[in-house]
């Protein structure tokens, strides 16, 4: 979708502002929001692309005015509301009002280390040969899906070169809708001038990781 989250190359005026000796979290509620979000992945059963879509799929003014962990919180609430794990009146009241929904699994403190160590690998078995090889010139498709995609706007319709093959990975555009549809994944590298025209920096090369269905031969 064409959301405010897709920020590559947008003309924001401000400088990057690193914070010296930055703490991991800036408030107690950030700690709890982070931990609740990770822990709810297990009973919630959603995948990372569903989580990302729940965060990014909101009006630009909302996305840009919320802090990072406020967006996490809003995304988590949406995922839980959609599945009836919590209800709007419970969030409003700040206490449980309805019986819990049965869930397959929850995260105990004994399970934390194993859950983090396992992570969520996205690589899948190869079932067909790769269409492209290292060095091939490819053009990214000009697509505008209304749902989740990981093809940023700033590379759409541009010609790049395949630099790496990563094997076959879960396709986020469909995974956000519940279908893994694994595909070959490539690192595709673009020249600065190709992406930004004569104003581009010719000494810069930028890559994205692109699934096969984002690409066509060039």
């Amino acid at each position, binding site marked *: 979708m064409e959301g405010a989250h897709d920020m590559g190359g947008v003309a924001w005026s401000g400088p990057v502002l690193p914070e010296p000796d930055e703490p991991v979290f800036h408030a107690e509620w950030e700690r709890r929001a982070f931990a609740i979000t990770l822990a709810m992945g297990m009973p919630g059963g959603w995948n990372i692309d569903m989580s990302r879509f729940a965060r990014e799929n909101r009006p630009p003014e909302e996305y840009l005015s919320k802090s990072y962990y406020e967006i996490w919180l809003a995304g988590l*609430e949406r995922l839980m509301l959609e599945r009836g794990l919590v209800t709007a009146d419970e969030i409003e009241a700040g206490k449980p009002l309805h019986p819990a929904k049965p869930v397959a699994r929850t995260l105990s403190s004994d399970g934390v280390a194993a859950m983090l160590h396992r992570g*969520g690998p996205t690589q899948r078995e190869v079932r067909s040969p790769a269409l492209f090889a290292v060095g091939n010139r490819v053009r990214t498709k000009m697509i505008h899906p209304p749902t989740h995609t990981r093809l940023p706007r700033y590379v759409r319709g541009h010609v790049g070169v395949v630099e790496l093959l990563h094997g076959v990975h879960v396709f986020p555009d469909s995974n956000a809708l519940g279908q893994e549809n694994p595909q070959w994944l490539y690192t595709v590298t673009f020249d600065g001038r190709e992406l930004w025209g004569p104003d581009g920096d010719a000494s810069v090369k930028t890559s994205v990781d692109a699934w096969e269905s984002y690409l066509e031969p060039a």
Partner: protein
Amino acid sequence: MTGHDHDHHHHDHSELSETELRVRALETILTEKGYVDPAALDLLIETYETRVGPRNGARVVARAWSDPAFRARLLGDATPAIGELGYAGRQGEHIVAVENTHQLHNMVVCTLCSCYPWPVLGLPPVWYKSAPYRSKAVKDPRGVLADFGFELPDSTEIRVWDSTAEIRYFVLPMRPAGTEGWSEQRLADLVTRDSMIGTGLPKQPHEVA
């Protein structure tokens, strides 16, 4: 003016409190419904505040600087090489290490969200997740480096990796001169978080005691 500033500050403060209350209430609801265990939440927080952070990555870099065979394994297939030091898992399932040289400087960004190699760097800093970095890194990386207070020669090519998939990129910075014979532990003290993202350089020997 003073009154206005005061009101503004007060406004920010009450917004924060509102969020604080909302999160606290949400945790209560989820705990009472049996979906989350507060002890597991505490452990998740403790893990990322005290155990998983950029010191892990610094150890990887120091080993690569010290051990040519490890460096080759890291650049060849980073995930198992990093796993040799015990770092693996969430947000680091598929890691690629990229090496800085005098000719080539690598920089990592996630323009779409905040993808970052957690097992070696921990959770990302606020600037990494901010609009200015996410928008500027792919178009004007030299401008970003200027925001961080340094510049590279025009002859150095800049290579920006936008983390749009589940591949996580980890920069192997150049070993500072004057560190011949240093132990891995001493070398690790030179490695900054930003040098492993590509927005900084390692410290020089005179900067560490």
